[in-house]
């Protein structure tokens, strides 16, 4: 009986330690590989934020967002989506694991990206604010390019 209790306790310790170790070493989520919680175009995203910023932020924050639009610029760390002549843009930071996904991108061409919505910034009317001329900026991070149709 005593032996069984000791064995049981030992087993519990091993299980608990395994869970703790698994939690500790678990890699951050690759959001570009998950099912999107929201699928939207750059244009629709801007409209949502122009109409009601607070509601839009509540709707999107921390969500896995799949967004389609025109590529303004890109490099190995981030992709900027938006329309030519419009200061507003959706900026997608690329997860280190998804860097190679940019090979399909072309400036001026359409693309679909996915990542975790991390926040927004709306141009202020304050002339002292240097960022006031940058339009709305929507940030998506831990991102990647979606190539499959």
């Amino acid at each position, binding site marked *: 009986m005593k032996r069984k209790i000791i064995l049981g306790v030992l087993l519990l310790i091993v299980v608990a330690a395994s869970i703790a170790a698994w*939690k*500790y*070493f*678990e*890699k*951050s*989520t690759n959001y570009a590989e998950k099912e999107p919680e929201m699928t939207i175009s750059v244009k629709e995203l801007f409209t949502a934020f122009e109409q009601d910023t607070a509601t839009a932020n509540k709707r999107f*924050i*921390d969500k896995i967002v799949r967004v389609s639009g025109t590529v303004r*610029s890109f*490099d190995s*760390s*981030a992709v*900027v989506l938006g329309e030519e002549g419009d200061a507003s*843009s959706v*900026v*997608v*930071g*690329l*997860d*280190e694991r998804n860097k190679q996904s940019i090979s399909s991108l072309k400036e001026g061409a359409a693309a679909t990206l996915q990542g*975790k919505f*991390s*926040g927004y*910034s709306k141009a202020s009317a304050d002339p002292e*604010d*240097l*960022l006031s*001329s*940058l339009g709305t*900026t929507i*940030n*998506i*991070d*831990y991102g990647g390019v979606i190539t499959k149709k």
Partner: protein
Amino acid sequence: MVKKTLIAFVGFVLFAGTAKAQDRYFTKTGKIDFFSEAKLEDIEAKNKTVTAVLDKKSGAIQFEVQMKGFEFEKKLMQEHFNDNYVESNKFPKATFKGTVLNNTAVNYTKDGTYNVKVKGKLMLHGVTKEVEAPGTIKISGGKIDAASTFTIQLSDYNISIPAVVKDKISNTIKIMVDTRLEPLK
């Protein structure tokens, strides 16, 4: 005469407006990394979607970064950073508003790397503190690379380290800023 003055005035206003825009350089894909050497484990994260604007005429410089945009390798670190340390739901952004103190030492029309000193207000975790940091401004082919490495103390920004890991996590955080700025049209 009145007409000429009016035209000259309108011309001046238009010119002043364009001159202002041409003085500004920006990015929305700047990088800010932070690093903390710790007994338990080094902590590091990268943010690749930093917004920054530099006014080359006045030397005014501004940064904005979404705290939730910091990428960690480990999920647990990402969760602790956002929930327990910087409380990113409550304080979603960090901002810096400052000036290049020796802006006149930078020749923006000549390629080269210039050492600069930047001073301004850093807002993090809802606390604003004055910081001064060394940096470089590199001019090459009409583009500006602005970079800086400096340290901050977590305690200055009311970021508390839980007692259990207090001696394992450093209060000093190294921050590395790296931005490529393009003319703001």
